[in-house]
């Protein structure tokens, strides 16, 4: 078994903040590895260390068999990086951006042009090829970012929150591209705040929190461990709320979460839903809403850590739902503003 990425005990501090508190990772060649965690968990810092952009304070990492500190130049020849902080030049056109990277990678002018054309066509950007990228939509921008990281045909691709801020259609499109890339043998390390994204793409997921890996495994294993689904019940009569809470706590064997009159419990096994329905019926409670859905990252965190996915606000400004907003790019790099 060969590993494209191996990290041992990575530690990185920014002033009083510990971004990485000893991270070990092992990513098999040719697979997609998902780093899942909330803002400030240390995902971006981990990617920056592995992509040779940041020196760890302790620990070591090998990428493609090369040490990220000692052989940084070799590592850079193997990797492609796409993230909120590794971006294209807004004032250049799509073609110019890709051409620049091709030239920097040592391609002759004609070859760099051909490569730019080819990538723009593949990513459905041919029509926008000669427009300044600041006029691109969010989805187009991400596709160009991804194309830019593929100019050198990397063996290893780092995707740092590739779909944050994208609409569902663009997100699906990007997922499709990632799957195709993996089909050609590229190893992908992906960070995300979305459980379903990690679930969709990753062969293996590491859940990170406060700079540590708190759980690791195939998506199915993690979902089993954390309760793959959540059951929500909302009584028609708010007066029944107390009864509903106690029924739900009993059938799920877990502390329910209450949001106004909606009561949510993890549904770890498939007996929870029928049991809840039977008990509610027996108690003659009229139900306005009953739904079963996949766990959110929040719920996974609650199960794994006993606390909610907090916003340390060290990886980005967050919107109400705890996800990084697009304009959080500047704040997304505490290591620089505090420097």
């Amino acid at each position, binding site marked *: 078994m060969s590993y494209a990425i191996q990290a041992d005990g990575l530690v990185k501090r920014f002033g009083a903040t510990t971004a990485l508190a000893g991270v070990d990772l092992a990513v098999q060649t040719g697979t997609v590895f998902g780093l899942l965690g909330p803002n400030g968990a240390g995902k971006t810092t981990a990617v920056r260390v592995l992509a040779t952009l940041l020196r760890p304070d302790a620990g070591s990492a090998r990428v493609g068999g090369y040490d990220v500190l000692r052989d940084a130049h070799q590592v850079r020849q*193997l990797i492609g990086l796409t993230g909120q902080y590794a971006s294209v030049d807004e004032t250049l056109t799509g073609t110019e951006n890709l051409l620049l990277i091709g030239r920097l990678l040592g391609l002759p002018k004609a070859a760099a042009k051909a490569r730019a054309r080819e990538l723009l066509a593949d990513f459905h950007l041919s029509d926008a090829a000669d427009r300044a990228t600041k006029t691109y939509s969010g989805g187009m921008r991400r596709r160009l970012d991804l194309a830019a990281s593929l100019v050198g045909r990397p063996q290893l691709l780092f995707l740092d929150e590739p779909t944050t801020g994208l609409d569902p259609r663009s997100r699906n499109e990007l997922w499709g591209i990632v799957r195709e890339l993996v089909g050609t043998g590229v190893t992908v390390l992906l960070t995300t705040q979305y459980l379903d994204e990690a679930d969709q793409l990753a062969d293996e997921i590491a859940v990170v929190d406060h700079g540590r890996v708190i759980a690791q495994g195939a998506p199915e294993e993690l979902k089993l461990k954390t309760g793959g689904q959540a059951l929500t019940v909302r009584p028609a009569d708010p007066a029944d709320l107390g009864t509903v809470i106690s029924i739900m706590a009993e059938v799920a064997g877990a502390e329910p979460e209450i949001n106004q009159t909606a009561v949510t419990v993890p549904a770890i096994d498939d007996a929870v839903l029928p049991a809840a329905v039977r008990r509610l019926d027996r108690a003659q409670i009229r139900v306005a809403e009953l739904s079963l859905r996949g766990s959110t990252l929040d719920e996974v965190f609650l199960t794994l850590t006993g606390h909610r996915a907090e916003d340390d606000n060290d990886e980005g400004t967050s919107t109400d739902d705890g996800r990084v907003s697009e304009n959080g790019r500047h704040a997304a790099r505490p290591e620089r503003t505090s420097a």
Partner: protein
Amino acid sequence: MTATAAALHPPVVPSRSVSPAAGLRQTLSLAWRSLVQIRHNPMELLDLSIQPIMFVLLFTYVFGTAIAGSSGDYLKFMLPGIMVQNALFATMTTGFGLNTDLTKGVFDRLRSLPIARWSPLAGRILADTVKQAWSIALLLGIGMVMGFRVGNGVLGVLGAFALLLVFSLATSWISVLVGLLVSEPEKVQIFGFMVIFPLTFTSNVFVPTDKMPGWLQTWVEVNPVTIVADAVRGLLLSGPVAWPVIQSLLWAAAIVVLFVPLSLRAFTRRV
């Protein structure tokens, strides 16, 4: 997506380091990028061209007669100095561009590529030097259209160009430091305005030293802008050349000695 876009190269052994020749090619590519930006951002061309022309026109025809008796005489006095002022302002583009790359994430993309570590900065400085040369030529051209005549021939003009470029290369390290320290590009411009404006107006660029109050004259005489302006006057017109040029070069050297290490330190802290 076709398979060709993503297909891997046959496994190759990555090279251990960047050759100086490759580093130079990368620097040229990055300089090209900075210059191509102008095409998409006409504002920059405006900064580089309209502003110097406007300054020359306004000062010559508004203040000229009042300060020097005639606009022609004033143009002769002021044009070399305004070249120095313009060169100083233009160095701010280096810090501005650097900071934009840092805050927008372009710099990290570049740093993740197997290129010479020094090429992004070198490429930017090279491009900015080209822009400087353009501005100097433009100022001299507009001056000559308005009646400015050089006194030391082609050699004098080349000397003035060389001195202005050397001095602005040196001072661009101040701009680099500012670009590395501030949190957003606009702050580089604010710094430029707050420092370069008073610095150039308290020199003999616009008004002869003896027309200023005594306490100010002491400063004006030691102000490096005065010294470089005197050197450029000597080279373009006539008068003493050697001593002002030597002093200018000493100032340039002092700035480099102080600001290059500071910039490099700020650089390693920031990235």
